[in-house]
């Protein structure tokens, strides 16, 4: 690069200082940009009308007597370990199992889904197609189906979350691999390594920190998602929330939400710390 640049300086190139002294005018907003912006605004207004959007609701919603049911919080219920702590632990167990199994599965699948490291073209296309289909299924729908198919309770929820974690991590991880430096892989192949061994030696070290960081992020997602999955019968704290909602015990739900909020905050901090350390 440097040499090429130097060679140019030696040859006859028009003096750049002449044209560089003229201040350019600020480029005008292009008509296409304006048109696109107008289109987005028009479509938003139309959609708002169609969906019955009303600004007034932002005030009237607070007059709903439902809100009174949130207060005072039933701390006696919330602090009883059978009611909240035990199901919450179950939620964590679901999230941990789903994250670990999901991340283990995502490692080989991720390598198969990157153009750089796929063993061959057919594998790449097949794996990518399957993962695209899996990702296209809304996770909540997946949970409903799997909970019904496997069993009501923690196991069904854990399986749904595992599939979800694998899909998310494969997507993130394979894109990282796509962007990885291909040159160490070239070196490993030049040394006569088999494809798998060369990928392990030449690519994995470069993408492993990102893999760990994404895994921490997926765990964070899973803790939140396992609450939601509990709502549809996947076990854990979500089931408790759903039960209390049926009895309109919003005073208890608010208490549970505060506990979850605090714990999710703590996990986010830990996950952030891990990501900062490895990336």
């Amino acid at each position, binding site marked *: 690069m440097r*040499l*090429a640049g*130097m*060679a140019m*300086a*030696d040859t006859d190139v028009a003096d750049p200082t002449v044209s560089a002294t003229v201040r350019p005018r600020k480029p005008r907003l292009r008509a296409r940009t304006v048109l696109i912006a107008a289109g987005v605004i028009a479509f938003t207004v139309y959609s708002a009308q169609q969906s019955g959007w009303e600004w007034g609701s932002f005030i009237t919603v607070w007059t709903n007597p439902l809100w009174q049911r949130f207060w005072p919080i039933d701390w006696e219920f919330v602090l009883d370990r059978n009611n909240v702590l035990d199901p919450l632990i179950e939620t964590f167990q679901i999230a941990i199992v789903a994250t670990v199994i999901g991340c283990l599965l995502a490692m080989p699948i991720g390598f198969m889904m990157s153009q750089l490291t796929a063993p061959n073209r057919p594998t790449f296309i097949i794996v990518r197609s399957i993962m695209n289909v899996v990702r296209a299924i809304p996770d909540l729908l997946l949970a409903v189906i799997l909970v019904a198919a496997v069993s009501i309770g923690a196991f069904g929820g854990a399986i749904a979350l595992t599939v979800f974690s694998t899909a998310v991590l494969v997507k993130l991880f394979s894109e990282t691999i796509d962007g990885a*430096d291909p*040159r*160490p892989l*070239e*070196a*490993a*192949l*030049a*040394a*006569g*390594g*088999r494809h*798998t*061994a*060369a990928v*392990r*030696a*030449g*690519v994995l*070290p*470069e993408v*492993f*920190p990102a893999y760990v960081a994404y895994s921490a992020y997926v765990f964070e997602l899973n803790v939140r998602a396992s609450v939601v999955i509990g709502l549809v019968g996947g076990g854990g704290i979500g089931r408790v929330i759903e039960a209390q909602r049926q009895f309109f015990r919003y005073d208890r739900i608010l208490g549970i939400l505060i506990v979850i909020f605090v714990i999710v905050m703590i996990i986010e901090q830990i996950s952030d710390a891990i990501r900062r350390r490895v990336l």
Partner: protein
Amino acid sequence: MIEFDDVSVTYRGGVKALRNVSLTIDDGEFVVVVGLSGAGKSTLLRAMNGLVPATSGSIKVNGTEVVGAKGSQLRQVRSQIGMIFQTFNLATRTTVMNNVLMGRLATVPTWRSTLGLWPAADKEAAFEALERVSIVDKAYVRASNLSGGQQQRVGIARALAQEPSVMLADEPVAALDPVTSHQVMGDLQRINRDLGITTLINLHFLDLARNYGKRLIGLREGELVFDGDIADVDDDTFREIYGRAITPDDLLAADAAGGHGNG
């Protein structure tokens, strides 16, 4: 022995990188390849270990045909050929040791290398390779923490760990400063002399080619335009290979003296 017989390489898109090249390199030779960028130097080297597939012709390394070789046959040929890269091509986020062990991939079962369970003999080979380039003290340092010259020595050690009979070096000093360039060229010369490894080096700088080479190969637009003893080479030869007059940019010494700047 390396035998090129009427070898052509055409890249997808129709660029002809090598045109009907025939040449023979005997065991233990030290060959320098020169030519402008785009003349096919890199392609010539990469065709030898199949990193770039030859479109036609025949390339034999120690009697084994490389053109069209696949699978274990290709890996077997590659394992005999060490390669050194302009940009070192190290896995920078792992240790020097792990990089040098890459040179043992062809002989170690995949499950072992994948789990990092390297046999003692292979670790020993890696240590010896590091000792040969005087950088064994850095064995467990992360590769990214080394200087450019040190990284290139790790690259050489990785190639040596293969216990190769042929060494290919693709612009090995283009990314290094003049002092380090001479050290690395000296290392390659010593390895050629001590171990008798056939060595082919692509070089950009003509004075380095003159200082270190024995046999010179000149490429121009994919064609072999010179092949002879470096002692017989003068500026006219270089002018013919390059198709233009020699400039200070073509010399490392000029680079060292700050011979060209922007002004």
